[in-house]
């Protein structure tokens, strides 16, 4: 089989990329989705708060997804559901599998990686103790509660205060479970303030900052956990240990871009984001392979995923039309306080009004300036009241800057105190 664009993943990123590619006139698109429905993880995110940027109204996850699914149907973009991609090669062959076709071997002109991310499991934390039933990652619990209609526990302790953990604290409470506390090893929560207030404070659920779970008790089903305060080096303080009775430990301890396929294809990855290294066209180290959404770097808002993925879809379409190759471009580096940037190289593109750099900071900063340097020249300097690792930041670079400084070799994004 041959296709102009194969999109791997039919979640928010894949759907938006497909729509955008279609808008560029490329219609021979195939979306491959492993679930039996399009929409990805949005289907289990039944809470509201999506769409404020893209649709200027507040939607739930399934509603947000449906807007794109309807668009896909309207544009007659093909999608194969229940289809798992098992291999991608350097020359853009995609091998997939489903119950109807068996093994699919598709030669693409461009591939968009939109596989999303997965949750860090318990093993990555090495929490000592037993390995009973009742330890769930928050996303798995979310599937039980929001898709299947089953409660995974009565008395819950949540470790990790990322947004999924907070959202699940509220969901479990509303459905009748008792969430005893949310422990966060860091001195601050990575979740949105709104979620801390509306998911925890509203229901009187304590948020224990600088606390972690040091032991899981119970041989068959979880019977309790030991909770301890941690010191400045995040090491548990033995004297602060406290036994908390519960039948469930829910983990919300981070998301990892799901790049097994990218790795197989030989796509170069960024060790910080664990997503592909991309240029400003969201193209990976393999020409014709683009990446967007949570497989590229973990986002906090689906709206930004949709925006980013639309760009990836557009550039994938450009690639199919023009067979452009861009070379290496201008390197973007991380200065003080900046953990990573996407992209890591910029190809000046005078068709685009602006080029977006998305980035995250490495700590909580108050009243710092975000600065962008083109070589030695500071082109952008803007004060922010607060910058936190939990909130993705972005700066838009107008095309004039590239036109005015054609000899720029490096771009640096950093935080400055003044």
């Amino acid at each position, binding site marked *: 089989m041959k296709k102009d664009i194969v999109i791997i993943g039919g979640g928010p990123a894949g759907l938006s990329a497909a729509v955008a590619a279609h808008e560029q006139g490329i219609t021979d698109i195939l979306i491959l989705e492993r679930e039996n429905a399009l929409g990805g993880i949005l289907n289990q995110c039944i809470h509201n708060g999506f769409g404020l940027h893209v649709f200027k109204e507040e939607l739930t996850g399934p509603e947000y997804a449906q807007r794109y699914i309807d668009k896909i149907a309207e544009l007659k973009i093909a999608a194969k559901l229940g289809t798992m991609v098992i291999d991608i090669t350097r020359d853009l062959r995609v091998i997939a599998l489903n119950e109807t076709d*068996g093994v699919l071997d598709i030669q693409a002109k461009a591939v968009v990686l939109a596989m999303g991310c*997965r949750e860090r499991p318990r093993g990555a934390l090495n929490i000592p103790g037993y390995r009973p039933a009742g330890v769930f990652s928050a996303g*798995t619990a979310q599937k039980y509660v929001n898709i299947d209609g089953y409660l995974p526990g009565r008395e819950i302790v949540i470790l990790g205060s990322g947004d999924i953990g907070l959202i699940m604290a509220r969901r479990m409470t509303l459905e009748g*479970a008792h969430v005893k506390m949310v422990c966060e090893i860091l001195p601050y929560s990575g979740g949105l303030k709104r979620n801390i207030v509306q998911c925890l404070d509203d229901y009187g659920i304590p948020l224990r900052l600088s606390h972690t779970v040091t032991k899981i008790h119970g041989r068959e089903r979880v019977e309790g956990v030991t909770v301890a305060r941690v010191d400045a080096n995040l090491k548990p303080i033995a004297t602060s240990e406290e036994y908390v009775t519960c039948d469930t430990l829910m983990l919300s301890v981070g998301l990892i871009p799901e790049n097994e396929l990218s790795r197989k294809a030989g796509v170069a990855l960024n060790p910080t984001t664990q997503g592909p290294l991309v240029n400003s066209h969201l193209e990976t180290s393999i020409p014709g392979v683009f990446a967007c959404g949570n497989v590229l770097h973990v986002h906090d808002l689906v709206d930004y995923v949709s925006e980013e993925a639309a760009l990836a879809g557009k550039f994938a379409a450009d690639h199919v039309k023009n067979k452009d190759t861009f070379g290496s471009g201008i390197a973007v580096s991380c200065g003080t306080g900046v953990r990573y940037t996407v992209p890591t190289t910029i190809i000046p593109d005078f068709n685009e009004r602006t080029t977006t750099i998305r980035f995250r900071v490495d700590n909580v900063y108050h009243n710092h300036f975000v600065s962008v340097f083109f070589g030695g020249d500071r082109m952008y300097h803007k004060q922010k009241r607060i910058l936190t690792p939990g909130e993705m930041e972005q700066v838009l670079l107008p095309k004039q800057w590239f036109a005015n400084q054609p000899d720029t070799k490096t771009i640096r994004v950093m935080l400055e105190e003044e």
Partner: protein
Amino acid sequence: MMHDAIIIGAGVIGANIARELARYQLDIIVLEKNLDVCEGASKANSGIVHSGYDAKPGSLKAKYNIRGNKMMAALCAELAVSFRQNGSLVVAFDAEEAIRLETLLDQGVQNGVEGLRIIDGETARLQEPNLSQNVTAALWAPTGGIVDPFQLTLAAAEVADLNGVAFHFGTAVTAISCTNGVFNVETSKGHYAARIVVNAAGVHADDLNNRLSSHKYQITPRKGEYCLFDKQIGGLVTSTIFQLPSAMGKGVLVTPTAEGNLLIGPNSVFVDDKSDTSTTEAGIRFVIDKAKQSVDNLPMPYVITAFAGLRATEKHEDFVIGEAEDVPGFFNALGIESPGLTAAPAIAQDMAGWIAAKLDAVPKPHYDGRRNRQPSFESLSVEMKQAMFQKDKNYGRIICRCELVTLAEILDCIRRPLGARTVDGVKRRTRAGSGRCQGGFCSPRIIEILARELGKDLREIVKASEKSAYLIGLDKDLL
């Protein structure tokens, strides 16, 4: 009903004795208190087929280790169990340790281990590039190997089952007595009687023996903790890297597993509780620190799980194999700690031989020792995958994304003899859920499949034991 023999315990020893006894026209039953085979000491260990330099010359450990090692390749081929003779290295870090390698070599030669050789640090690093720069010398044992302990146990049990041995799970022995040559066994599921009882009860084997025999044994469980790494770095080492053994066992090893992961561990700590398989912060830290001495570049972010197992250490530190002198018909396989996995086929061969002789048993004319098992779908070529799909559409449905396990494989593991009844049972048979996401993706799907296949509600599906259900009710049940 009177059975010819009751085997108590479906670990690697009990299952292999069952397989050997299945060759005869005998009525054999295996009683297992857990819901699956291989739930005790056989489950959580290093999965090493030891070459045999480590055991004290003249001991039963030495004897059965050497014999078991020689049997393993053929047995694993017959049973379709993953086995690889990857060789092992015992590494020394200074001149004093290098001398101890010589002692170990001599001991190995005495035990009859073939091919042992001492090599210098440079040669060892040529063979294992990630070996620490601090390694000055190593003992190379080419007959060392790796095997999947669960598969070895399950395969033996399956063959036993197919040849007429009955397995009763969830059946815990509560009392045992012997009158006029008949053993009466009381269990959580009722009364059993037999002419022969085989004690393959792992860490509980002393309790069982001590109820019948005046010759008392004492097993103190010795815990070993491990960290398992992602398959991505399963190739960090190709052979099994040991440190020098001490009074507390063979020390921390770094090894690839038969299924392609990297494993480090174990430590060695005596515990009071025969069910204490909890991991500890100190234990895991010890294992990591020790493993880092053996190899450079141990990538800690790739740890996918930690676990602990118990060794059934008898106070005389040797295996106890054979009929109890004062209880005719009562056969012990007791104190089976390392190298018990290696020794299992040889122990089983002897035990079954003695029991068959005692019962004047006649071989079955149609015994078939082979086990039919498809290679994992993931390991097949694209063409083979398509061919499998043509035979069964369920090969088109991937259930576990990390290990690429298909619906067809999961259904097969539930439907075949001694099929999986628990989520852990599916995991250990198919590897679904044993990859880097540790079941985050596939466990809800596996619970659904198990419920459908077993005609149960999702709430009744358990992880491993009866009280280990995942789901406690429906949404709003508690409102």
